[in-house]
C-alpha cells in the first residue's frame, strides 16, 4: 500500500502579497511638491482664460449691480453715490409700472411661443421628407430672417406697417395704425420677433428630429401605428427634450429679443403698451438716469428668472429619455 495525502493547488501569486513578500515595488516614492503641481495644474490652466473672461465680463458686473442697487446715483461720475439701503427696492415694488410690465412680458412670452414651438414643429414634421439640394435651399430660406440685423429688420417692418402707404394695410385691406395703437403695437412686436426667431427654432426642431433613432418609428409602424399615431405617441414624446429647451429659451430670452424692435419701432409706447421688463429697466437706467432703481430692477429680474429657469430645467430633465 502507498500512503499519501491530497494537497491543495496553490492559487497564482497576487501582486499585493508579492510586494509584502519583499519583491521590488514598482510604484516610485511620492514625487516632490513641484512635480505634483505640474501634474495637477494643466486642466486648470486650460480653464483659466475662460474663467478670467467670465469673471471680468459677467460675475464682476453682476456683483457691481448688487452693490449699485443699494445706492442712489444719476450715472454722472462727478455726482456722489448716496447709500439708500433697500430704498430702491421699496420704490420699485411700489410703482404700478412694474406689475404692468411683468404682465406685458408674460404676454410677449406667450405670444412668441407659437413661433418657437408650434410653427417649427409643424414645419419640421411636414418638411422631413425634403431631401438633397432642396433641403439646403429650404433651410437657408427659413433661416435667413435670423441673419437680418434686428434694427434693419425693424426699419423694413416700419415701412411695411406704415398706416398710409404700408404693404400690410394694403394686403389686408385695413386702415390700422399698427405701431401707434395700444393693442396692435404689442401684436406687431410679437409677430416681428417671431418672424426673426422662427427659422432658428425650425433648425433646432429639425436637428431634434434627426437625432431620434428611425428604428422607433419603423418599429411603431410594424406594430400597427398609423402615421399620426407614430407622430403623437412616438415622435413628439421623444422630441420633448428639444421642445423643453425651446420653451426655456423663449421664456428666458424672448423679452430680450424684442428689445431692439421696441427701441426702434415704439420706444415702449404707445402709452407704455409695449414696455416689458427689459425695456422698463432700460428706461429707468438710461432715460431717467436712475442707476440705483435700474440696478434694483435688474437684481429682481435676475432672481426671478433664476427661479423660472430652475423650474423649467427640472421639467426638461424629467422629460428627457436617455435614448440608448
Amino acid at each position, binding site marked *: 500500500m502507498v500512503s499519501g495525502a491530497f494537497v491543495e493547488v496553490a492559487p497564482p501569486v497576487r501582486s499585493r502579497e508579492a510586494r509584502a513578500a519583499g519583491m521590488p515595488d514598482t510604484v516610485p516614492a511620492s514625487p516632490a511638491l513641484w512635480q505634483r503641481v505640474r501634474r495637477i495644474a494643466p486642466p486648470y490652466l486650460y480653464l483659466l482664460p475662460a474663467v478670467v473672461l467670465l469673471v471680468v465680463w459677467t460675475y464682476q458686473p453682476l456683483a457691481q449691480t448688487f452693490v449699485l442697487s443699494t445706492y442712489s446715483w444719476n450715472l454722472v461720475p462727478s455726482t456722489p453715490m448716496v447709500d439708500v439701503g433697500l430704498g430702491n427696492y421699496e420704490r420699485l415694488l411700489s410703482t404700478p409700472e412694474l406689475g404692468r410690465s411683468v404682465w406685458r412680458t408674460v404676454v410677449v412670452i406667450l405670444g412668441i411661443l407659437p413661433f418657437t414651438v408650434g410653427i417649427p414643429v409643424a414645419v419640421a414634421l411636414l418638411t422631413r421628407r425634403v431631401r438633397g439640394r432642396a433641403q439646403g435651399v429650404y433651410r437657408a430660406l427659413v433661416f435667413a430672417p435670423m441673419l437680418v440685423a434686428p434694427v434693419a429688420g425693424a426699419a423694413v417692418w416700419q415701412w411695411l406697417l406704415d398706416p398710409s402707404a404700408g404693404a400690410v394695410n394694403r394686403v389686408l385691406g385695413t386702415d390700422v395704425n399698427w405701431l401707434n395703437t395700444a393693442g396692435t403695437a404689442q401684436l406687431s412686436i410679437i409677430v416681428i420677433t417671431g418672424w426673426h426667431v422662427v427659422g432658428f427654432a425650425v433648425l433646432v426642431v429639425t436637428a431634434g428630429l434627426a437625432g431620434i433613432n428611425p428604428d*422607433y418609428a419603423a*418599429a411603431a*409602424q410594424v*406594430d*400597427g401605428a398609423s402615421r399620426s399615431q407614430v407622430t403623437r405617441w*412616438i415622435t413628439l414624446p421623444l422630441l420633448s427634450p428639444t421642445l423643453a429647451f425651446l420653451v426655456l429659451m423663449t421664456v428666458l430670452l424672448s423679452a430680450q429679443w424684442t428689445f431692439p424692435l421696441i427701441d426702434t419701432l415704439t420706444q415702449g409706447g404707445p402709452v407704455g403698451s409695449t414696455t416689458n421688463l427689459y425695456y422698463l429697466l432700460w428706461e429707468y437706467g438710461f432715460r431717467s438716469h436712475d442707476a440705483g432703481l435700474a440696478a434694483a430692477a435688474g437684481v429682481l429680474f435676475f432672481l426671478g428668472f433664476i427661479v423660472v429657469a430652475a423650474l423649467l430645467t427640472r421639467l426638461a430633465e424629467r422629460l428627457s429619455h*436617455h435614448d440608448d
Partner: protein
Amino acid sequence: MSRIQLQGLTRRFGAVTAVDDIGLDVADGEFLVLLGPSGCGKSTLLRMIAGLLPPSEGRLWLDDTEITHLPPQRRDVAMVFQSYALYPHLSVARNIGFPLRTRKRPRAEIKAKVAEVAATLGLTDLLDRKPRELSGGQRQRVALGRALVRDPGAFLMDEPLSNLDAKLRAGTRAEIAGLHRRLRATTVYVTHDQVEAMTMATRIALLNEGRLEQLGTPSEVYDAPASVFAATFLGSPAMNVVDTTVRAVDGTLVAEAEGLRLSLGIDADIPDRPVRLGVRPEHLTLTSAGGQGIRAVVTAVENLGSEEVAHCDTGVSVRGPRPLGVVPGEAVTLSARPEHLHLFDHDSGRRLAWQAASVPQPV
C-alpha cells in the same frame, strides 16, 4: 400563422443592387434563416418583407394576400429589431402593449394580454420599469414580448441576439427555438452567425451579394454546399478548398495537385479537368508520412479545449480530438474518405455532382 412568398424581389440603392431577384417560399410554421456576411442584403430583404422599404421590383404575398404595396401597419407581421427599438419613454408594460393600443383594444384586454406575455417571458416584475433600467437580455425579452403580444401572421427578426454576450446568446437562442416549437409561428430570422443558423433554422437561405446562394436545411447546406462560397461560409475553421485536376488513373478518378493525391472513389475514365476540391477540416485524418493524400508541414496548432486545429503551410487545416499528436514543423500526410470530398467548378465555383453515363453511381 401564414406562408410568405417572395417573387423576384429586388432592391436597388442608386447603382448598387442590394437585393437581386430573390424568390422564396416560406411555408407556414417554418423557421427560415437568412444567412450571409454583412452587406449581403439580408436585412434589406427583411425590411422589404416588413414593408419598411419598398422593393424596386418583385412581389410579396402573405398567405393569399399580395402585400407588395401595403404599408407596414397593414401587414400582419411583427418584427424584432437588432437595436430592439424599445420606446424609451414608455414602461415595459406599455411597450409590450403598444401593438394592441394601436389596434384600439379595450384597456382591460391589453392589460390581461400583457400580463400573460410577461409571465411567459419572465418579465412580470419588470412591467413598471423603463427600458433604460433593463439589462441587455431583459430588453431583448421585452422586444420579443412586443412581437408576441398579438398573434401576427409571421415573425421577422433582425439579428436579435447580436447585442448579447456569448452566454446569454446561447440561452436566448434555445429560448427562441423553444418558442418557435411551441407556437409553430412562421419566422424569418436574419443573422450572420452560422451557429444560430445551424441550430435554429428549419431551412437556411444563404445570401451572397444580394443573391440567393443556396436554400436548404442546415444539414443540406453543411453537407452539400452548393458553391465554394457556401462551403467556406459555414464551418469553423472554413472548408479547405484547393485547386486540383481530376484525372483518370488506372480506371479510377483521382484529384491531383502538387503534393496532393486523393481518390474520388469513382471508377470512370474522363479527360483531365481542373476543379476546386473542398474538404472540411474535421474530415481530414493524419496518416503516416509517405502514403497517399495531402503532404504538408504543420505551421501552428490551436488548442480549442476539446479539440485541436492544426494549420499547415499549404493553407489546409485539420481539426480533430485533442491531442492531435503533431507539433509545428512536422511533415504530415492528410487523407480523406471519398464521400467527404466536394468538387466545385474551377470558374463558376458551383458544386459538381458525378453522373454516370449509363449506370447511376453515388458520388
